[in-house]
C-alpha cells in the first residue's frame, strides 16, 4: 500500500476518534455501565474466595488482577464500535462507503482502532483508580514482560475486530443485528475467558476454547500480564494470535465479497 493510500485510513481513524468524542456522554455512560459490571464481578469473586487461598491455581490477588485486565481488554472495542459496523449494513449507508475508493474492511479497522485509542485511554484512568483500592496486583515487572503484554494486547484488538467484523457482515443476510450481537457476545465472553478463566473449565471445554480464536482476545493478554507464562510460551501465544488474525482477516474478505453480491438497497 502506498503512503498516500495509507493516509486515507489514518484520516478515517482520526475522524472516528472525533466522532467518538461527539458522543462523549453516551460513550462515558456506556463505559461506566461496564465498570459497574466489573464491580459486581469483583464482589462475586471476593465471596467465592472467602476462606480459600486459591482456586484452580489462581490466588485472590491474581484473580483481582485478572478482573482488571479483562475489563481493560474488553472495554477496547466496545459495543459502540461494533454497532457502528452493523448499523451501516442495517440502515443501508454501506452504500455510501461503496461509493468511495476505500476498502470496506480496512476502513472499518481504521475507524475501530481510532475509537480504541480513546476507549483505552479512559479505561487506563479507571483501572488506575481501581488498582489503588485493590492492592497487591501482580503485573509483569520486567521490560520484556511489559512488551509482550503490550503486543498481545494490540493483537487481541485485531482478533476481536475480525470476529466482530464478520458477525456484523452476517447482518447482510439477517437484516437485524440484535440476535447476532447477543450470540456473538455470549460466545466470545465464554470462550475468550472473559467470564471465568479458561483453566476453570472442564478439560474438554478448555481444549475446545484453546483451539478457537476467541482465547486470543482475553486469555492470552491476561495470562501474559499475570506472568503465568514463560517468555517462550508468551511469544508462542502471540504467534497463535497472529495466525488467527491472518486467517480471520482473509475469511472476512471472502465473506465481504459474498455479502456485496447480497446487497439489496431499496428505494426507487
Amino acid at each position, binding site marked *: 500500500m502506498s503512503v498516500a493510500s495509507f493516509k486515507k485510513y489514518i*484520516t478515517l481513524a482520526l475522524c472516528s476518534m472525533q*466522532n467518538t468524542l461527539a458522543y462523549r456522554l453516551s460513550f462515558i455512560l456506556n463505559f461506566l455501565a461496564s465498570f459497574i459490571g466489573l464491580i459486581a464481578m469483583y464482589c462475586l469473586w471476593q465471596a467465592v474466595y472467602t476462606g480459600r487461598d486459591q482456586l484452580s491455581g489462581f490466588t485472590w490477588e491474581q484473580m483481582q488482577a485478572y478482573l482488571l485486565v479483562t475489563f481493560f481488554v474488553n472495554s477496547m472495542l466496545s459495543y459502540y464500535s461494533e454497532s457502528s459496523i452493523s448499523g451501516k449494513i442495517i440502515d443501508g449507508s454501506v*452504500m455510501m462507503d461503496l461509493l*468511495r*475508493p*476505500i476498502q470496506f474492511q480496512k476502513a472499518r479497522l481504521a475507524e475501530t482502532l481510532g475509537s480504541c485509542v480513546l476507549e483505552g485511554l479512559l479505561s487506563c484512568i479507571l483501572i488506575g483508580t481501581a488498582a489503588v483500592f485493590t492492592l497487591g496486583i501482580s503485573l509483569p515487572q520486567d521490560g520484556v514482560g511489559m512488551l509482550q503484554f503490550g503486543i498481545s494486547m494490540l493483537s487481541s484488538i485485531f482478533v476481536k475486530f475480525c470476529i466482530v467484523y464478520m458477525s456484523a457482515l452476517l447482518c447482510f443476510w439477517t437484516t437485524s443485528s440484535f440476535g447476532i450481537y447477543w450470540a456473538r457476545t455470549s460466545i466470545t465472553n465464554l470462550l475468550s475467558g472473559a467470564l471465568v478463566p479458561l483453566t476453570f473449565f472442564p478439560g474438554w471445554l478448555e481444549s475446545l476454547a484453546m483451539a478457537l480464536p476467541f482465547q486470543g482476545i482475553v486469555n492470552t493478554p491476561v495470562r501474559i500480564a499475570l506472568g503465568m507464562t514463560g517468555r517462550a510460551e508468551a511469544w508462542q501465544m502471540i504467534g497463535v494470535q497472529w495466525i488467527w488474525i491472518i486467517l480471520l482477516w482473509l475469511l472476512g474478505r471472502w465473506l465481504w465479497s459474498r455479502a456485496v453480491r447480497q446487497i439489496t438497497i431499496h*428505494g*426507487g
Partner: protein
Amino acid sequence: MSIIEARGLKKVFKQAVKDPGLGGAIKHLFTQQYREKYAVEGIDLTIEEGETVAYVGPNGAGKSTTIKMLCGVLVPSGGEILVDGRVPHKQRMENAQHIGAVFGQRTQLWWDIPVRESLTLLRDIYQVPPAAFKKNLDGFTELLGMESFLHLSARKLSLGQRMRADLAAALLHDPKIVYLDEPTIGLDVAVKHRIRDFIKEMNREKGTTMMLTTHDLGDIENLCERLVIIDQGRIIYDGKLQKVKDAFARERTIHTQLSAPIVGAEELFADMPEVAVESSAGDEKEGDSVPSLSIKFDRFRCTASEIVKRVMNHGEVVDFRIDEPSIEEIITRVYEGQLDSAALSEAGKGRE
C-alpha cells in the same frame, strides 16, 4: 468510445412470498418461497462525455437501481456495463475514484463532524492535491453559498444546506461523471435554482458528464437536453427533450384579447373540427375586463397565423399569447400510460 455504455442490463431482486397472517409467517419459517422481481429488465444506454441526461420515470421504475449499478454498488444480474472503460462492480475502487454521486435521500457527509472537516476527509480519501482542493472548495463555497454552514456538523444542517454540502462533496475530486439521484427533492425554489446553476456551471466549465434522476420537471427543462424515460424496468423513450415535445405536445392554445366581443365566435372555426374555441365576454361589472377568445389547435394541422388571421378578420385583436403544454403534462401522461409506448419509441429513434 462512449463514457457510459450499458447493454442488456438487468437486475433481479428476490422477494419473499408469504401467505397472509400468522399461519403464513410460520409456514415461511420452514419453506421459503421467493418470487423474482425484475427491477431493471434489459436496459441499453449509451452516454457520451459531457452530456447531461435526465433519467425519469415513476416510483419503482428502476431508476435508482440503474444508477446504483452504474456506480458499482449493486452487482447486475445480467448484461454488461462499461463506465469510462471500467466494469464498475468489478473495479469498484478505480471506478469510485472517477465518479461522484449524490443520493438525495442519503448523505455522504459524516454526521457528527463539521462539513469543512468532512470535506477534508474526502480530500484524503480521494487523494485530491492540496491546490486543487483549495480551488474547488473556495469555488464551491461561493457558488453554493456554503460559507455560513461550513463549520456546522451535518446533523445540524437544514435539508437545503445538506444537499449543497453533499453536492460539493461529490464534485470535490473533479469526477468525470456525476450521478445525481433526486438532487432537488424537498428543496425550496431558491435552493433548487442554486443547485441547478451549479450543475450547469460544472458541466459547462469542466465538461463533467451528468446523469440525473428526478421527479422535478423543472430540473429536466433547465438542465437536460436529453431525456430517458424508464417504466417498469424498461426504457420507453430515449431522445431529445424537444422531440418528445414535438411528438406529444402538438397542442397549442392561442389566447386573444379583443376590443369588442365577436358575435358567433364559436362558429368561427366550424369547418375545422379539431379546433376548440372558448370565448368569454369579460365580466362587465368589473369594468376593466376585456372580452377574450381562447383557441386550442394542433400545430401540425394548422398554423398559428391561420388562426389569428381568421380571428382578425372578425374583430380587432388587442393582444395575444400562445401556450404550449409543459413537459410536466407530457411526462404525467406517460406515467399514467396514456401515451402509446410504440409511438414513443418511434419518436426516440429519430435521435441520431
